[in-house]
């Protein structure tokens, strides 16, 4: 009896294996293996005219990007949108760009706030469609230096609306870390006095932070762009992170977990976003943030529209709303980043907000190393070497954590 059961189950397995068999790669990424500048996105049509709202909208956003007052009654720019347009909004947040890409591929979300290390992957995979910026009234007020950039457009066609940009900062507990740090060495140096209480961002893209630190501290490596690393440079960054692991108490990707670790004192120093510092300060945790001397990595985000969305009109209305001066100002202030719409600066509660975050200052914004998907063709223009692509970054991240 037992033997015959084994035979039957094996036959079932074999049958299933055969029926799921290979299809010769016909569903493969349509030409997305091509080079960065030259990849051909799937041929998708953009909307020509705007119709009435569909009544609902499913938003996939970074935490703090779509607040409806449930976290803090005073922080709310979703309710006014719902009232004006009749589109009922549901919000799902994500912790890393990789998570955003895999959630977006399920087709359950209409719009997404994509950073530069997610946007091109979404475009190349046919997950998001081109956006007709003519249908978005507030698009005209968006800073020109954010339009038609390599991370939000392909061949002059915009794939979304620029949302804003900001930097990954260094946060520390003011009562436990003295003097106030000014350099990333506090989290990378093997002799850091904060061994065992350092935190770091749990995503392969964090390798860029190590590369940027090496750019300043080890110029002999010749790193010109932290997202374009040849084998030797990549290995140096990975080695630095492996050494850093000895200092780390835990990695974070869930922002509430970081707040809690700083509250309890398990982490006292590490990389963060302004919004996390704001939440921690709101809970009376003594923390402060700074832009270290080596520079910062950061993000420049784009609201994108799902190609399979059934609420595209609501999606366009949302993209228009989120870059409207009022909403854009509210998001920028709450999340702690620069708005994308210059008119937002007049609407912020703190009148110095735009000065603090250097809004509209093109020279400053060029200095932030924005999250970008690393690819084999070096992004810094070198053609004599191959750079580590994102798949390599991902595997290296697993081996860094060990």
């Amino acid at each position: 009896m037992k033997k015959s059961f084994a035979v039957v189950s094996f036959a079932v397995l074999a049958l299933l294996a055969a029926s799921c068999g290979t299809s010769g790669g016909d569903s493969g990424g349509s030409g997305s293996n091509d080079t960065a500048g030259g990849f051909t996105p799937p041929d998708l049509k953009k909307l020509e005219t705007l119709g009435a709202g569909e009544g609902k909208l499913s938003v996939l956003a970074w935490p703090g990007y779509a607040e409806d007052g449930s976290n803090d009654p005073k922080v709310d720019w979703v309710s006014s949108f719902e009232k004006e347009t009749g589109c009922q909004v549901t919000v799902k947040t994500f912790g890393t760009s990789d998570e955003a890409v895999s959630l977006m591929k399920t087709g359950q979300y209409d719009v997404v706030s994509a950073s530069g290390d997610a946007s091109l992957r979404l475009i190349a995979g046919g997950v998001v469609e081109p956006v007709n910026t003519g249908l978005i009234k507030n698009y005209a007020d968006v800073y020109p230096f954010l339009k038609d950039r390599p991370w939000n457009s392909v061949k002059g066609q915009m794939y979304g609306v620029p949302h804003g940009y900001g930097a990954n900062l260094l946060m520390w507990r003011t009562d436990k870390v003295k003097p106030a740090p000014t350099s990333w060495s506090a989290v990378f140096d093997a002799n850091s006095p904060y061994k065992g209480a350092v935190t770091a961002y749990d995503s392969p893209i964090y390798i860029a932070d190590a590369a940027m630190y090496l750019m300043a501290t080890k110029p002999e490596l010749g790193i010109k762009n932290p997202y374009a690393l040849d084998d030797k440079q990549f290995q140096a960054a990975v080695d630095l992170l492996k050494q850093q692991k000895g200092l780390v108490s835990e990695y974070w990707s869930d922002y509430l977990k970081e707040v809690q670790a700083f509250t309890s004192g398990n982490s006292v120093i590490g990389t963060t976003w302004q919004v996390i510092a704001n939440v921690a300060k709101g809970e009376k945790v003594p923390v402060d943030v700074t832009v270290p001397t080596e520079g910062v990595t950061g993000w420049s985000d784009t609201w994108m529209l799902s190609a399979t969305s059934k609420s595209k009109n609501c999606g366009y209305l949302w993209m228009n709303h989120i870059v409207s001066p009022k909403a854009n100002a509210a998001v920028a202030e709450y999340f702690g980043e620069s708005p994308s719409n210059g008119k937002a600066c007049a609407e912020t509660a703190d009148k110095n907000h735009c000065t603090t975050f250097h809004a509209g200052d093109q020279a400053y914004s060029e200095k932030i190393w924005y999250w970008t998907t690393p690819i084999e063709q070096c992004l810094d223009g070198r053609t004599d070497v191959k750079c580590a692509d994102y798949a390599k970054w991902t595997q290296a991240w697993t081996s860094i954590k060990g």
Partner: protein
Amino acid sequence: MLHRHPRVRLALLLGPPMLWLGVAYLGALAALFVTALWTQNGFTGVIERQWTLDSFRTLFTEDVYRTIALRTIGVAVLVTLVDAVVAFPIALYMSKVARPGLRRILLVAVLMPLWASYLVKAYAWRGMFSEGGLVSSAFNAVGLESPGYGLTATVVTLAYLWLPYMILPIYAGLERLPNSLLEASADLGARTGHTIRRVIVPVVIPAMVAGSIFTFSLTLGDYIAVRIVGGTNQLLGNVVYDNVGAANNLPFAAAVATIPVVVMLVYLAAVRRTGAMENL
């Protein structure tokens, strides 16, 4: 009409569950294995249906995956041992010492933690292991340094979570042990320790192994507790999660997921020899 055709009746009776077993269980396993043989576009994350052993090659050639697999098995073994050591006296007291009324109360007490959410319990341990938490204050009070977040915390948390799954089989196994055997042992002059060693433990070993199947397999697949209390450590479940949820590399995740399946098959094959399967 059905009573005239016993074969039809049997087919109707057994058909649905067999179909469930075949499609949902074996089918899922087959799909897992087939996916592991595909590859994926590194940039867009789209699955490319071309046969390749690349995922398995990476799995076997990169040292880090061996380290993680061994660490996971080590944690699973430790959790099982801790549970066995803690569960045995509790089960022994419940089945042989406690009065029937108390026995019922204890049984409920053992089952009670299962009513609370897994996450609540894991986060409770996170609070206890944090700086200034219960565990660290207790360690500091006796002049020791708290283990903090790490593998120790992971083993403790998982051992706590799976303890009922170990107590219940042992309790059931001891229930079946006639009291007359213990009396005979005492009559023949054996002390308590001797009785436990020579009479109770041999009877209870298969029950313990049955319990260990639960604690071992549940630990092999766990990835949440280690994220909450494990500090920087990762187990096999985290690698699977990172590859599905973050890297979009489903084929590689499937390849990693076959490791626990193989480990469990080996374990079950070994366990079958002890006769523990009859104790499940």
